[in-house]
Each structure stands twice: as C-alpha cells, then as structure tokens.
C-alpha cells in the first residue's frame, strides 16, 4: 500500500535525532512535526525568524504578529527566540540547522532539486528554498513519486529550473525511501506491500537496487 501523506511525514520523523534543529517546509514537511518520536527533543526553525515553533493556536488565540514561513498562525514553545531574517538565514548558511525537509517538483539522481518555478506558468518565487538547499547539512525531500500525469519526479536530470544542485540527501515518497548516492538513487526501503518492480517502473533516474529491499517500519 502506498503511504498517505501523514505516513510519509511519519517515516521522515524517524530521521530526527535528539537535539536536532529542523526546518520544515510547506506541505507534507509541516506534518512531520506531528510525529516527533517520544523522548526526542527537536527545535523547529521557521525561516521568517523563529526558533521553537509550537503547534497552531487555539481558535481565538491567533496572533497576526506570530506566523510561520507558510504565513500560518502558530505558537511558540518554552525556550523559543525571535530574530531578524538576516540572522535566520545566517544560522541556515552557517550549517546550524541540522535537517531541512522540503517538497519538490523534481529531483535528479545527482541530488539536484527543482521546486520553485514552472516556465510559462506563474512564477511565485523561491522564497527561502534556495538558501536552505544551498546550505543545509542534511536535506530530505518529501514528495509524491510521480506527478499528477503519472510521470516520475525522480529523474536523470531535472527539466524545470533548479532550486539547487547536488544537495538532496534522501527522498521519502509514498512508495519508497531513497538515498542519493554518487551512483544515483539507492532504494533503501519499500512502502509496506509495494513491490520493488513498481518503484523501478516509476523511477526515471538511475536506481540502484541492492539485494532484498526491506519494508519500512511505521
């Protein structure tokens, strides 16, 4: 069975380690915050200028001065701090953020990522994505394995304008966990009940299948 978006987030949450500072992008990555394993303390960074992001506020307690990078009303946790956008991206560039999770439109088997622009259609802008992918020590992409037309999003080369080159370390889709290696995507885990053949058929970039591929544990 292919994973739900929640399950993709749940699987990514297994990558978290105690003491990690983590930046979660918009969409599936945001859901990762709901699955932080017990006993692990993780601090969420929001690149508009906050460390220690908490859950959404209760209705009636929204504060327009307190939003995340997705412009959603949020709260803070104990030990949080606010800072300006230069310091925010300063700590990102300096490699102080341990893990960045973000969505993508395409990923290449060399780790290139495209997620900000579709030529001919509307250009919304890159926001902080280019800074994050250029600087993060560890980048995990959370996305669907194929686009709505059924075409693979894991490609030999990105066709869309790049957000960053050779930066993605891992990809978690509804079908698989893949690592970006020097020789292409390496299949690490299958979604429960998903056949290796299905993953092979839906991966256009170079895919390394090394022996028996284990199922994910969720």
């Amino acid at each position, binding site marked *: 069975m292919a994973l739900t978006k929640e399950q993709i987030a749940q699987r990514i949450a297994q990558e978290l380690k105690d003491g990690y500072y983590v930046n979660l992008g918009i969409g599936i990555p945001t859901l990762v915050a709901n699955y932080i394993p017990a006993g692990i303390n993780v601090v969420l960074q929001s690149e508009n200028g906050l460390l220690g992001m908490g859950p959404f506020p209760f*209705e009636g307690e929204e504060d327009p*001065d307190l*939003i*995340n990078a997705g*412009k959603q009303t949020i709260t803070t946790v104990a030990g949080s701090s606010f800072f300006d956008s230069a310091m*925010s991206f300063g700590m990102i*560039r300096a490699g102080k953020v341990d893990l960045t999770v973000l969505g993508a439109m395409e990923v290449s088997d060399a780790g290139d990522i495209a997620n900000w622009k579709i030529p001919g259609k509307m250009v919304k802008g890159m*926001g902080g994505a280019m*800074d994050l992918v250029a*600087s993060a020590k560890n980048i995990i992409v959370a996305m669907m394995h194929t686009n709505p037309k059924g075409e693979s999003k894991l490609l030999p080369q990105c066709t869309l304008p790049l957000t960053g080159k050779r930066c993605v370390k891992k990809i978690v889709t509804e079908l698989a966990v893949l690592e970006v290696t020097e020789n292409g995507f390496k299949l690490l885990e299958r979604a429960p009940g998903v056949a290796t053949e299905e993953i092979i058929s839906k991966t256009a970039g170079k895919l390394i299948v090394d022996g028996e591929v284990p199922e994910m544990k969720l």
Partner: protein
Amino acid sequence: MNKVYADANTAIKDITDNAVLMLGGFGLCGIPENSIAALVAAGVKNLTCISNNAGVDDFGIGLMLKQKQVKKMIASYVGENAEFERQLLSGELEVELIPQGTLATRCMAAGYGMPAIFTPAGVGTEVANGKEKRVFNGKEYLMEYAFDADFAIVKAWKGDTDGNLIYKDTARNFNPLMAMAGKITIAEVEHLVPAGELDPNYIHTPGIYVQRIFQGSNYEKRIEQRTTKSPLSP
C-alpha cells in the same frame, strides 16, 4: 533635532516618483500599513519596491500594484496576488526574484557598510546568471551587492522619540534590516514613547538608523493563513 512626525502623510511627503523604496514585513506580518496607505493616497508612481512579498490583491503592497504605482518589484515570493500576475504577464511590471536570505543579507550589508556579500544561495541556478562566482574552502558562492534604497519604510511595535525601535514576535522579520539600510528610514510604530522609556538592552534598531518616526493608527494586521487547532486536537 526632532524625528517625530505627525502621521504617515507628513512622513512620506517627500517621496517622489521613481524612488527606490524598501518596505518591511513578511507576508502581511509586520508591514507598514499606514505608510502604504499614505503612498497610495499620494499617488507617487514608477516606484521600485524592495520587499520580501508583494502583499495580496487588496492589502499591503497589493494596494500600490492596483494603482499601478510600482515599476519594479524586487522580492523573494509573490505568490498570493492575482493583480501582480496580470501586470507581470502583460509586461507592465518588472520583477526581480531573489532568494529570501540573499534579500535579507543585502539589506543588512547596506546597513553595515559592506558593499557586497557572498552566499551559496542560487549557485547552479538561473539566479547565478551574470553574477560573479567564487569558491571558498571548496564551496561555490555568488557575490551579491548591498542594496541602495532612497527610503526604508518599516513597522515596529514600540519606538521612542529618538528613533529606537522594538519589534514583536515574527513581525520583526525584514524590518530591522531595512531600517538600517535606507538613506532615509521612516518607522511607524504601534506605541510611540518618550526617549528613555525603552530598556537600552532590548533595542532592536538603534535610533541612529531612523530619521523619521510616527505613531501609527488603526492597524488591521490581516492574517493570511488563519490556522488553529480545536481544544481536543493533540
């Protein structure tokens, strides 16, 4: 020397056509609402606006776009604005999209007297086109120049009559950076107090960077994405 102005209209009075403006805020959070309203009322045109976002159709910089006051927009994300899209596609509006961290750091560079900075953001992408590249410790960087703005217009939570500013929560964002970067910096504040009332240890923008300040009024503080949890959810 008096830095205190009566209101937005008097504070922005000498902003003329073709000016280069920085406008603080992230999304609609921490934007200089009063000054934007005054700029719309003044009707100045051909502006170059440096701001992380371009507002929404009927609020923020969107109000200036609707009036066709903006010639060029320099931003990192403009995805919430249909009028913006229309003007961009019709060629009425010139747009330069740059990474958010680059935008922030180019503001800081201006305020810190640093003519250029190096950032890895955009290396290997179309953002790198025409820019000087340089390798430090085996990693590639782009050289990006400090911004040069005629006016910086920012919004703070508290300010004093000497121009010292304090921001609240994530409404800080680009405001202190732009406050440092303008040739003339105009600050609107929710609470204007006499010099000496703010704790000098907690000033975010020292008054030396601020030439004009006024007490704002009628803040709408619109929320773009109202997300809440019910009392029962985790």
